[in-house]
């Protein structure tokens, strides 16, 4: 006997909504939307970080990205001349950002990307003027560290003798430059040393790496710091 009661119930629901406060709609141009932390707005590029490895270009499913690379004079080193992001084909899959080893790609929260013609939606990063200087500086720095290390090793050879090179001093005793290169900031260095003090096996391995392969050591150190930070973060949450 309850014909139509459902209809009345539905009408009651809509009537209630009619006089509710309307908080769902963002009055866009005046009111800005609240964007989430991981919102993918526009793909951005840090020219200084890029090592022109081409991984992002290969990872992109839509061929959004392209590199313009030249070989540096006198040597085989790749030199990035320009970086082009054709945003109109981007589908915001994040694969390029994930593939980048040197965190040269990141998202900002700029979502108003309409343009009047197809060409101007392309984002082109030309090689900045200071890049040559910056790269030269970095090269010089690396060279200096390499020399210092060599000196330290030879000095050690003199004092301790050849048999004990591999067992060497601890990571904490390494020159400051090496530590800085391994972990970056002061904080990170402190964290790294804490981690290594707990785990002697890792410590010894890392030490060997510093001698043999600096790049690999850097990565390992970075991973250790990140893991420690993450653990600490999660521990703090709980």
């Amino acid at each position, binding site marked *: 006997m309850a014909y139509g009661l459902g209809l009345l119930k539905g*009408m009651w*629901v809509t009537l209630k909504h009619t006089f509710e406060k309307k908080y*769902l709609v963002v*009055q866009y141009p005046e009111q800005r939307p609240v964007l989430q932390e991981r919102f993918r707005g526009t793909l951005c590029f840090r020219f200084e970080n890029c090592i022109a490895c081409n991984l992002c270009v290969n990872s992109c499913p839509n061929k959004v990205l392209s590199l313009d690379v030249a070989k540096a004079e006198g040597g085989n080193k790749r030199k990035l001349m320009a970086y082009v992001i054709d945003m109109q084909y981007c589908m915001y899959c994040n694969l390029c950002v994930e593939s980048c080893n040197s965190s040269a790609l990141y998202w900002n929260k700029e979502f108003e990307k309409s343009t009047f013609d197809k060409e101007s939606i392309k984002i082109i990063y030309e090689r900045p003027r200071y890049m040559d200087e910056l790269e030269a500086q970095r090269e010089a720095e690396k060279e200096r560290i390499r020399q210092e290390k060599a000196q330290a090793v030879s000095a050690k050879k003199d004092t301790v003798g050849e048999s004990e090179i591999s067992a060497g001093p601890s990571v904490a005793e390494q020159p400051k430059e090496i530590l800085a290169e391994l972990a970056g900031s002061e904080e990170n260095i402190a964290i790294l040393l804490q981690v290594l003090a707990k785990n002697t096996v890792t410590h010894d391995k890392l030490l060997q790496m510093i001698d043999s392969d600096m790049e690999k050591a850097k990565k390992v150190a970075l991973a250790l710091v990140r893991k420690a930070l993450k653990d600490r973060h999660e521990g703090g949450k709980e």
Partner: protein
Amino acid sequence: MDLWFTNIANYIVQLLMSWGFPYFWADLILLLIQWMCVLAIVVLDVIILIWLERKAAGFIQMRLGPNRLGPFGIFQTIADAIKLMTKEDIIPNKVDKWIFLTAPLFMIFISVMLYLVLPIGEGLAVVDLDVGLLYFLSLSSLTTICVLMAGWGSNNKWSLMGAMRAVAQMITYEVPLILSLLGIVMITGSLRLSDIVAAQSHVWLIIMQPLALICYFIAATAELNRGPFDMPEAEQELTAGAYTEYTGMRWALFFLAEYTNLVAVSALFVCLFLGGWHGPFLPQWLWIPVKTYVVICVFFWIKWTFPRIRMDHLMSFSWKVLIPLSLLNIVLTGFGIEIFAWVRGL
């Protein structure tokens, strides 16, 4: 205050006659002026109603509705109208040209003709026909032919399907619509709308005919192709039904006609069930619009609450539920009248 408009009309006729017009011509000119007034009311109503509907839809769906142009977005419809009027009038290649072109004109013409018999106040109908109700109902079912013309002339399968649906729906719901109003005619003993309104000076017919009210309201919703019964232009299935091929002003005319019909049917509802111009405080000619807008708001409320009903359900609902109910209403009314007469005779 009730007689403002009657006085104005009398004044115009007297003025014209004092200028030397014979009474026939003066009356004809008055009729033309009344026509113009009806047209103005229609257009104004539609402009307000479209805004109101969008606002109501927004509020029901927890949005804000149009709110950019003018205070509360009240000028939105005017902007839309300007846009529609300046749009290109596209006539597709393979349409049946004359049928295609004249369908919207007929539709709006018929819709405006509905207003001629509606009494806005005592003696305030343009033409107070003695078969006003019959005239209204027969004209309002004529609009179906225009929808069929539009659908057939468009030479498009969606349009034709929409038109066929409109015709099927109209035939089906015309029956309970008229049957439900028979009870009112039995009680008031007149088909003249002003007589029906005058009969409600003490008791509104909503109290005497609740069953007819429900039947009429549902059937009218279907007749207007509105609310949960908008099968003829079900946009998810038929793009826009019979209006698919229309653009610009021709489409706008259909739209105008739909809203015009909405106002007319709501006004008829007010005249038949809600006591027409009777009401305290306000003058007569203000009561009808106020009540009409309340009824229209209920139409909006229903439209934006319920999902569209399936075509076969629509049909079976009318034949199996509404028509028996309205027939029952006639029987009950007959008994009621007899019993009332008997009690009075005691």
